[in-house]
Each structure stands twice: as structure tokens, then as C-alpha cells.
């Protein structure tokens, strides 16, 4: 290699190819992913994050929760994600389109949280989460700096949001433990993590065969779309018209008026969640 310029061009091309291939390629495929409008529900999915939850995600990010928790459920049969009740279906790219800071994570020291608010058989509520944050759990530290321990005023009632603690955790008489705004936001965020709606590309592969087992929940018996077989991976292969039972899907970029739902007459209703 004697020519500096040619060498430089080569280095440029090498980085350019991997950038164009992976970054631009996936951007072209997923960059315009639209929310999914369901006729029966007359709503689009996924839904926007509530303001409190969006603030909670910032807390989640700045505490570094991602070091121990993933937020991606793998498809049934690949790992024990489904058996552990982390989610009935795999996570797909469409689940994240409204998340400003998707925290997929890469380590499972703690459980997956992608679907925490919709866990089976019972999902924790905000109180449970605040308790866990205060007391800590097996393998999880307590985050007491997210709480304020303060004196109850003379003759005053304890605060409404004071934690009801028992045993050794109970504060001394006349004291109470109340969550700070950060703790409340974090709990609101964690409760809001749910993927109740099964997108066509996310229909469980395993469900295609032993359908009766999967239909235990009150969800509509949904013939898994053909695209579901491999769609976890390539949701937009046939973009823009996603194959759902062979019918093009309506993909309005914004919540569409109800009348527009007729855009996909005859399409099998995508499976609904339990809620």
C-alpha cells in the first residue's frame, strides 16, 4: 500500500459499508414503523407513554437499572421468558416506537421488565414496586435514597402515600416513610410497562400448533398470521403492507378516525390482550 489516498478511501469505504448496511439499512426498514390500528378496539397500539411514566423512564435510565434488567421478551421456546410469565409474546420493534429511551438491556441479573405491568398470574401494582424499592429483595439492593423518612406532625395524620411497612422495616413511632417524586415516577413507569396487544408480527409461533392451550385467556382466537412465523425478526419485510392473514394491513401513521378502519375489511381481528 503506497498510495495514502487509496488507503484512506478504503478505510472510508469499510466504515461506510457497515454504517450503510446496519444503521441505514435498519433505519430504512424500521424508521417509519407506524402504530397499528385495530378495528375492534378502535384504538391504535402501542399507546403513548403517560407523562409520569416518561419521567419515570428517565429515573430508570439515570439509576442504571439497565445493568441488571432487560426489557425484551424473547419468543416462546427461546429461553424461559414465557414460562416465567414475562410475556405471552415476544417483543417486537413496534412495541418501542413511542419510547424515547428504549432500555433493551443485555444482562439478566434481575427479571425482564418489558411486560411488568401485565405479568401473569398477577402483576405488581405501584405500591408493590415502591415497597420493593424501599426494602430491596433477594439479589436486589434497596433504593432508600428514593424515599424520605420524616416526622409526622403532632396531631397530624400520616401522609396518604406513606408506605405501610411492617417488621424491622417499620419506622419508629411518629415517623413515616414517603416516596419522593422520583420514586413515584419510577413506579408509574414500571407499572406502565405492558404489551397487551399482539401485533400480527408478534403472534407466538408456538401457539400456531397447540392453539387450545393458548386460548385459555379470554383473547379472541386468532389464527396466527402467516407472517408471524418469522416476523419477530423482519416485521417489515413486506412493508408497507404487513401480511396479516394475507390481507394488507391498514397502517395509518397517526391514530385514524374510526371510519378508516374499514381499510382492511375481512382481515382477521388481531389477537387482543386480556385487558
Amino acid at each position, binding site marked *: *500500500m503506497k498510495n495514502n489516498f487509496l488507503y484512506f478511501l478504503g478505510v472510508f469505504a469499510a466504515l461506510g459499508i457497515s454504517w450503510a448496511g446496519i444503521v441505514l439499512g435498519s433505519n430504512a426498514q424500521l424508521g417509519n414503523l407506524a402504530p397499528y390500528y385495530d378495528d375492534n378496539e378502535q384504538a391504535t397500539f402501542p399507546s403513548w407513554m403517560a407523562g409520569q411514566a416518561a419521567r419515570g423512564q428517565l429515573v430508570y435510565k439515570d439509576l442504571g437499572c439497565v445493568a441488571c434488567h432487560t426489557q425484551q421478551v424473547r419468543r416462546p421456546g427461546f429461553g424461559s421468558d414465557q414460562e416465567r410469565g414475562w410475556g405471552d409474546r415476544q417483543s417486537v420493534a413496534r412495541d418501542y416506537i413511542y419510547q424515547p429511551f428504549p432500555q433493551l438491556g443485555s444482562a439478566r441479573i434481575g427479571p425482564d421488565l418489558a411486560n411488568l405491568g401485565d405479568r401473569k398470574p398477577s402483576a405488581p401494582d405501584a405500591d408493590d414496586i415502591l415497597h420493593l424499592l424501599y426494602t430491596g429483595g433477594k439479589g436486589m439492593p434497596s433504593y432508600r435514597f428514593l424515599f424520605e423518612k420524616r416526622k409526622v406532625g403532632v396531631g397530624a395524620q400520616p401522609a396518604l402515600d406513606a408506605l405501610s411497612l411492617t417488621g424491622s422495616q417499620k419506622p419508629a413511632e411518629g415517623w413515616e416513610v414517603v416516596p419522593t417524586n422520583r420514586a413515584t415516577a419510577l413506579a408509574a413507569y414500571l407499572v406502565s410497562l405492558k404489551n397487551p396487544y399482539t401485533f400480527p408480527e408478534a403472534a407466538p409461533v408456538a401457539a400456531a400448533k397447540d392453539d387450545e392451550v393458548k386460548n385459555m385467556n379470554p383473547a379472541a382466537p386468532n389464527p396466527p398470521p402467516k407472517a408471524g412465523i418469522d416476523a419477530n425478526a423482519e416485521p417489515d419485510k413486506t412493508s408497507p403492507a404487513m401480511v396479516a392473514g394475507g390481507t394488507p394491513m391498514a397502517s395509518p401513521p397517526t391514530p385514524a378516525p374510526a371510519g378508516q378502519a374499514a381499510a382492511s375489511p375481512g382481515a382477521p381481528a388481531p389477537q387482543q390482550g386480556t385487558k
Partner: protein
Amino acid sequence: MSNKPEYTPVDSASSCTLLFLLASALGWLVIGGVLAIVAALQLHSPAFLAHCPVFTYGRVTVMAETSFVYGWLANAGLALVLWVLGRLAGEPLRAQNWALGGTLFWNVGVTAAVVGAACGELTGFSLLGLPKFVQLILFASYIAIAIPGLLAWTGRLRQVSFASHWYGAAALFIFPWLISIVHVMLFAVPVRGVLQPIIAGWYAQCAWTLWIAPLFLCVAYYVVPKVTGKTMPSYEFASLGFWTLLFVGGLTGGRHLIGGPVPAWIPSLAVVSCALLLFHTLIVFLNLKGGVCGGTVATRFISFGLAAYILGALVDVVTSFHGIALHTQFTLFDEAQKQLALYGAATTVLFGGIYFALPRITGKAWFSGALVKAHLTLTLAGILLLLVSLVLASVTQSQELLDKNIPLGDIAGHMQVWLSGAIVAQVILLLGNVAFTANFYLTSCRILNISAPAWFATPAATETHVS
């Protein structure tokens, strides 16, 4: 190390710049080591320092990683690459003020990143614990540091270039591109949804294969033939190995996203690329296997590093397959792979490079042979213990993660035995690095005669007396 090293004006003219880079690198190495111990302790017993918001496990791991990668690896790698390029140019480095200023600001940037992480400025992405405001500082200062290296590359004496040239210049070019792309696409005008983790994963992989690996391969390709004094075997293939790394290396990152909510072609592409990359690894092995026989401290470190590099490439291929990834994904095996690459390969080769370069830069032999031996023993033992502990912990973790009846909290408890091994390993590594740092400062301070700078002299000595 007892032989008096060769000493040329090419080296001595740039000693100030290079020592500044190396001194800051070693400072970060020790800081990163302390933080890594804290992280290992927290992984073992989560209650450790849990009351302190600055030291949540998530923040400590990021602080440790940033100190290690951007503090230690970058500073030390840049110092050695500048040194190698300067030597190959056959004349003292030009525009050294740029490198000095750049180093200063680079370290200010890394400090800001570590302090930022302590205050919660996290990104959530692996190898990218750099807050938005730091990225521009790092971008500009890296270019400033690279200028003398690029001038040495373009102004070399002979027209022909060597393998060290290719790897060194590539490392100098690529990092600013990478960080600017990431800055624009993830922070300035962030893309939506899962595109963020895809881009972050691409960056993390490129930072390893296209930036850190070229940094230390540049050093290995220079030092090994220098020590052995022989022509490099199969050198005619070296350029092929280089271009394979550049063109294929950036495509291998998707293996971490297997089963994730991303297009399937990304992990599939990674399987193919990881396998293709073995071609590069094979050529590196063929070229540099001569150094394995060498008996100096430098070649021992470098041959250990190259063995780790080759092993790492093989493990990457194996774990990129679906069936294997099912067991290794999301476990501490990922961490073990990362340590094998960043510590086992990159760090040890840079250690070897520093052992070879410092006596030439300073013109003096190492201060203490005992400290050199201690460092070698402690480092190799520490790395092996760390890897073994993490792998054994990940075996437990992997089996129990697949068993739906074992709650996650219990798994953490079952790993504790192995995780205590990781703590011991981190302590051993830190001890070795403290010995190394002490040896480095003692050696270089002797040269710079820092022991009695004028501003610490007695006032009377600095006064001008007029009678």
C-alpha cells in the same frame, strides 16, 4: 530489561507528549480498577454501598467501563500508536502541541464522563457511557491527538507502508467518525425505538473491532518483529488480514441482539461476519506467532494478548449461533467475553508495548525488575481467575435462567461463590496495576527530574540578590 535500550533522538524528542498520554492512561487504569472492585462487590452482595445514589451498581459499572476504555485503553493506545508511527516515519513527531492539548482535553472529557455517570448521566448503552456533552470534547480532542500521528504517517521516509501503519492510521481515522455518527443519530437527532439499541450495538462493535483492535495490533505488529529480529512470516497476507478486519469487523455486532426485537438479518449477518473474521485472526496469528517464542516481558504480555484475541474471536463465532446464544445470552458470559477482549487481549498487548517503549522513550531501563515480574504474574493470574470465575458463574446462571421454577433472586445467590472469585481477581489485577504504575512513575520521574522542581525550592534560592 537489564540491557541498555537503544536511544534515538526520534524518541527523546517526543518523550514529553508520550509520557503525558501514558501517565494519564495509568492513572485511569488504577481508578478503573478500584471502580471495578466496587462493581464486583456489588454484584456479589447488592447491599454494598446501596444507600449511596452515586454508587448504584448501574452507575459504577459505567464509571468503571468508561475509565477503562476511554481513560486507559485510549490514552495508552494513542501513546503507543503515535510512538510507532513516529518511529516508522524516522523523524521526531511534528505538531506535538496539538497532541499535548488534545490529551489534556481528552482527560477532561473522560473525567466529565465519569463524574457525569456518577450523577446519573447514563445512556444505557454498552461501551457508550458518554454523556452527550462529553462526546464533542472527545471528538475534538481525539483529532488533536491524532494530528502528529497522521503527519508522521503522510510524511514517512519510505513510500512503502507497513502493517503497523495501516492499523495505526485506521485507528486514528475511525474513532472520530464513529463518535460523530453516534452523537448525531443517538443524541442530537435521536432515531426512534429499537433503532437506538441497534446503532449503539453497531458502535460498540466498531469501537472494539475498528478502533481498539487496530490500536493494539499496530503495537503488536511493530514490537514483535523488533524483539525477535526476524522477518515476519507470511507477511504478504498481512494486508488481506487488515482489510478483512476493516470490512467485516463492523458487521459482527448483531450477535448480541439474537432473539431481540430487531430484524433477523442483523444477527444472521453477524454469524457470517464473525466466521469471516476468523480469516483475519488466522493471518494475525500466522504473522505474529514468531513472538510467542520470545522471552522478554514485552513478548510474554503480547503473546498472552494475542492468544486471548484469537480465543475471543473463536468464542464470538460459537456464541453467535442461536443454539449457543440461548445459553449465553443475558448471562455473565457476555461480561467474560468483554473482559477477554478488553483486558485479556487489548490491555496485555498494550502492557507489552509499554514495557518495550518506555525504556526507549526515557532512555533508562525500568526502575525495578521485581515490580515488572510482580506485574506480569499478577496480571496473568488475575485475568485467568477473572475469566474462570465469570464463566463458572455464567454456567450456573445460564442453567437456572432456563429453569422457570428458580426465581431470579435465587440465581444471584447461587452465583455468589464464583462471584467472590471475580472480586479476588479484580483485587489481584489492581495490585498488579499499582505495581506497574509505581514502576512507571519511578522510571519516568528519574528522567524528567521532577523530584525538585523550581517552585518547590527554598525561596532564597529563587531570589535574585543584588548587592
